[in-house]
Every structure is written in C-alpha cells, then in structure tokens.
C-alpha cells in the first residue's frame, strides 16, 4: 500500500516488524527485501510520492519539489551547496543516472583500515550484479554524446589523457536533457520506479509526506519511531507512531545522522555525525565560437579520470565530468550580475561546463541546530583544496584543448582566461576553497561502519554498536569517500545488509 501523509489527518498508530526511514536507494532496497521475505515492513519518506506526470521540466517548480530545502541546503558557512533529493525515490529521482561500482581499492581499504568485514570486492560482487540487473544498467551509447560531453571527450583526447564513456540506468531515454528535474519520460530506472513498487507489491506499506522526528528507545533497544504527517505545504497535520523492533535509517548521510543525534542515540566514542564526506565540486565554463547546446541530450555520458586514482595516498583525487545546467542554475553559477552577467548568459548555447569533483579526505560533521534541523560543518583541508585547484586547472586545460576561445573559473574574483598560457599564471594551489561556488551531490559517512566501536557507529552489517535493532542503510555507512557516484554503492550495501535486518526483525 502506498499512502500519502497529506491525505491523512489525526493520529496513526502502526505495528510492524521493521520501519525504514527514507525511501531513496538504500531504504527502498531494504524495504523490498524484507517485504519479499514476508516481514511486515513500513517505509516513511519526508517528501512526496511523485510520478513522471508530476515532472514538468521547469527549474522553478522542480527544485522545491525534488530537493531538500527547496534546493537551498548548504553547509553552515554557506560555502557549499548540497543538492539532496526528497520524495519517494530520493536522489535517484533527480540524479544523472551514473552507475559505477565502489572501486575495489576502496573496499579493500575499508577492510584494512576500518575493520569492515564481509565486504571485500569478491563478497560484494553478487550485490553489485544484482543491483545492476534491477536497474537495467547499460553502457551509454556513443551516439548519445551531447555537445558538452563531446567537448570533454575532444579535450581529453587532444591532451592524451584518460577518459571513457559512462554507464547509466535509463530505458527509453529521449535525450531531452531534463534529468535533474525528474524524468518526464519515465526512462529513469529510479528507486521510485523500479524498487518501491516491487516492495509494495510484496506487501510493504509506504507513507510519503511523513517526517520522522524521533527514534523511540526503551531499556536499551529500539521500539520504533515517531513522526509527523505533513500537508501539501509541509505543515504538520497529524502524528504517527510505529512500534517495531527494528528501525532502519536511510535518510542520507545528513538526514540519518541528524535523526540519530536528535533522538539521543548512544554515542560513547563521539563518532555519530562525524567523518562526513561531500565530494565537493567546482565548475569551469568554456566559451566556444560554435554552438555547443549543452542543455540538450544526456547530461553526463563521458568522464575524465586522468587525475583520479584510488590507491591509498594517491595525489590524484579529482574526477572530471560535464556539468551543464538549465538557465536558472547557469545564472546562479556565473559570477557577477547586471549587464556583464547578461552578456555572459547570451553565450549560453556556446558554453561548455565541466566540474572537478574532489574524492575528499576532509572530515566534516553533521549536528542538529537550535531549530532541530541538520547543520553541516565542512572546512576543506589543504590537501583537498590543492586537489580542487588542480581539478579546476585541468578543466580549463581540457576546455582550451577542445577549442574554447575563453575560459571562466567562477569565484569571488573570477579567473578569466583567454589562452592556455593563462592557466599557468593562475595559481590555484591551495586556494581558499570558500572563494569558489562549490556543490555537493554525494554526502557520505557520519555513521560509518566497522567492527571497532571506537572508530565507527555501526558494525559491518549496518547494526548500531550500542543499540540493537537500529540499522543504517544509506551513504552514512561509508567509512571514507568513494570517489565515484554513490547510487550503485548505496543500493548494493543496502542489499548486502538486508538479510541481517531481516534476521533482527525476527529475533
């Protein structure tokens, strides 16, 4: 059964074997696996239950519908915008469908450094394969390379750098280019389309428009959750209490840890909310003397991995992909305002935009502010800042190699370059990262897994070290940054831990 909080008034009291908080990639998988095994399981989602018919390709209407805080979530110092999904399907509704497994080197490091057991590359392979089947993962056809991606590829090849086509989870893609606003054509094989309906068909109950505010605990064990039923404009119009012996947190690295903190979950080693990674990314725009039309077609189909290595201690920790936006996003990204800004906007169709995403080591932190809302602290370390600078310079180099006539690095003092030689004159080593408009779409960590309670929050199968019955099944689990888009990793780890959640629900 799929219900919407906005259609319910008053108080609800429910009983289940397990309750899952958050219906994105991780939560939906646990929900489906438990339902398929015959458990009575309830899923809650703070955002709405949307279908492709709700997606109208307008930025001003889709941002508030599909993103946390109407797309305005940032770090506490306002320097990094954090784009996170809300709604049944979570960020898989608005992401650009990139499918990459957790790199083997990362899994091996987690085993070696973070005492994660049972999650070696060989042990995780079945989960990755199963998820890729569920999501119909395939190679993006080379013919679908749009103008912006073609620029990246041309630049990478001209420089002799490493690059490749990417994989995605779309079926029936119309190449409209509106992916980040939800797919109007229902081509995205998102959690909301592929996983949640299967869970509901197997007997799970899903409630959209429910904000869970508390994990209930009695005598050292979880007993369920409490939440609010939200009306169409987010107003509280009722309450819900669920009695369950298992609670699964799957509301993202920010939402899950904030809920755990607000609930006073035991944290004897002060690990909860810490070790946040963001994959912070800056952008570089190139102007061409020919139409690029970056807004049309598959937004991200090609990657540059010249500056990305997953070896421990590597000084190559930057992933470069295209990052074109619709007009409102582009206007916000370009520096300045007024007449010079409009002149720059006139080049919209002749722009190519790349992003340099840092596979970060910085350890941020999620707390809860006086208003009870998540607060994100993230002060980029010098090595990460150095990586960001290298990445931005590499983007500029690629754009010039592809034929850009000018390159702009948006910043408090924008760097405007007209030739390759300008790049060497722009020293971006260890710049103040707060000068650049940075975006994060991959929060991770905050409730990391491992067998050592002193350095992790949950064990290797996602169960809280001190509070039996409390599980985590989202990107919060990851002990480090993973350096690739996390959706496949989140789905796969949720699938990996689901049998353990099921066993706990029957204890």
């Amino acid at each position, binding site marked *: 059964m799929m219900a919407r909080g906005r259609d319910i008034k008053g108080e609800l009291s429910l009983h289940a074997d397990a309750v899952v908080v958050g219906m994105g990639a991780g939560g939906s998988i646990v929900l489906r696996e438990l339902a398929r095994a015959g458990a009575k399981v309830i899923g809650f989602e703070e955002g709405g239950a949307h279908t492709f018919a709700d997606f109208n390709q307008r930025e001003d209407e889709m941002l508030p519908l599909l993103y946390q805080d109407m797309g305005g979530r940032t770090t506490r110092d306002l320097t990094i915008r954090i784009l996170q999904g809300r709604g049944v399907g979570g960020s898989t509704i608005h992401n650009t469908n990139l499918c990459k497994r957790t790199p083997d080197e990362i899994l091996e490091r987690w085993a070696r450094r973070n005492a994660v057991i049972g999650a070696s590359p060989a042990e995780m392979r079945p989960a990755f394969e199963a998820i890729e089947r569920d999501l119909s993962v395939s190679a993006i056809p080379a013919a679908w390379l749009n103008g912006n991606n073609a620029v990246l590829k041309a630049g990478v090849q001209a420089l002799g750098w490493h690059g490749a086509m990417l994989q995605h989870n779309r079926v029936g893609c119309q190449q409209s280019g509106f992916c980040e606003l939800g797919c109007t054509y229902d081509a995205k094989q998102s959690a909301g389309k592929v996983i949640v309906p299967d869970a509901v068909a197997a007997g799970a109950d899903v409630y959209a428009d429910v904000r869970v505010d508390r994990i209930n605990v009695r005598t050292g064990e979880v007993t369920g959750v409490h939440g609010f039923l939200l009306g169409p404009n987010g107003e509280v119009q009722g309450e819900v209490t669920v009695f369950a012996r298992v609670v699964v947190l799957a509301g993202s690295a920010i939402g899950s840890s904030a809920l755990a903190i607000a609930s006073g979950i035991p944290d004897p080693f002060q690990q909860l909310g810490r070790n946040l990674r963001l994959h912070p990314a800056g952008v570089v725009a190139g102007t061409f003397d020919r139409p690029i039309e970056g807004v049309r077609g598959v937004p991200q189909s090609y990657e540059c991995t010249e500056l990305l290595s997953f070896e421990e201690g590597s000084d190559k920790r930057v992933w470069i992909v295209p990052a074109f936006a619709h007009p409102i996003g582009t206007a916000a990204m370009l520096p300045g305002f007024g007449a010079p800004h*409009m002149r720059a906007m006139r080049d919209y169709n002749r722009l190519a935009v790349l992003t340099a995403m840092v596979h970060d080591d910085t350890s941020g932190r999620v707390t809860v502010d006086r208003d009870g809302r998540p607060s994100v602290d993230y002060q980029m370390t010098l090595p990460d800042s150095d990586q960001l600078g290298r990445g931005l310079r590499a983007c500029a180099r690629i754009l010039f190699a592809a034929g850009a006539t000018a390159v702009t690095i948006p910043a408090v003092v924008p760097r405007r370059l007209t030739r390759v030689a300008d790049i060497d004159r722009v020293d971006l080593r260890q710049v103040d990262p707060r000068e650049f408009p940075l975006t994060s779409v991959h929060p991770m960590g905050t409730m990391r897994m491992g067998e050592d309670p002193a350095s992790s929050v949950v064990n290797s199968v996602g169960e809280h070290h001190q509070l039996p019955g409390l599980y985590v099944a989202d990107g919060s689990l990851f002990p480090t940054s993973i350096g690739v888009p996390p959706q496949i990793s989140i789905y796969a780890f949720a699938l990996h831990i689901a049998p353990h959640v099921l066993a706990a629900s029957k204890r």
Partner: protein
Amino acid sequence: MTSASPPVRSSRRAALRTFVEGALVVGVGGAVAFVRTRGYSDARDRPLVSFAPWESVVLHHAARRITASDHPEDRTIPTADELDVVGFVDAYVARMPTPMRRDLTRAILYLEQVAPLTLGLMSRFSELAADDQDRVLVAFEASPVVLLRGAFVALKSLVFMGYYRDARTWSVLGYGGPWIGRAGHGSHGAPPP
C-alpha cells in the same frame, strides 16, 4: 597568591560598564533603526504573501540591478518589474523552512541598512542611485566575510530564479524551454518532436 576580592570588584565594574554600553547601543541603534526603516511603501498591486513591505522594496531595487540588461534600449528584453520577480520570490520564500526565511530577512536587512555604510554611503540601499546600488552589490558579492558572500549568492539565485523562469527571457539565451507543451509534444511520456 591573589585574593578573591579584586576580581569581584572588577567583575561588578565590568558588568556595570557592559550594561551602560549595551543600553547606549540599544538606544542609539533603535533610534537609527526607527529612522531608517520608516517610510517604505510597497507599490505592487497584489498583496504580499511573505515579505514585509520594506523587504519587498529592497528586493525590488536589488532585482532591478541584478537583472539589468546589457542592452537597456532593447524593449524586447523584459525587466524584473515586468516579470514581477519580487512577486515570484515573495511567493517562493513563503514555502521555505522558517530558519531559511529568517536568514533571508537578515540578508535583505544587511543589504538595505549596513552594506551601503561599508562604502561610506549614508543612505539606505533602496534610496541610492543605480550606480551606487551596483557598487554596494559588488562589495556584497566580494565581501571578505564568507557568510555575507553566501547571503549574496542566495539573494542572487532567488532573483535569477524569478527572472529566468519566464519564457520571455529565454530568447535572450537561445534556450528552448521545456519540451512539455511544445507543438507536437503536448503530454508526459510522449516522444519528443
């Protein structure tokens, strides 16, 4: 070895001084605020959903400068007034979580009352000439205070959302807009033209 009494006297004196200074700041600040926040009238013909009249007036001036055209003589480029950017932002922020809404009010207050002073301009932002308003906005965007730069980005983003949401601005960019509703492509799920 020190006795306990001197710090106590010092603490009392400090407390008294703090009280007097605080009272002065509150008194003078209140008087300045009273003078500087009077006289706003929102000329829009529709009632405001979220903003106080003074916020609407300030944003109105900021939106004009932020979206100023590079070809002001070209009447085909719509202005922020013609697109009712302030009306859009007013309705948009009404749906924001209260803490975000509160921060936005602070940003608008800073722009109106404090930002001009940082350049030695003694008038409110909304009473400055356009050139001076641009100077204030440039300084706001490049403020050495990280939080203020973030506040500018938030204001700018909201204004541009109100501006570039409108199809009348898309011709400036050569942007075709959503496929939904285009001729031969009227419904969701339908193939593109």
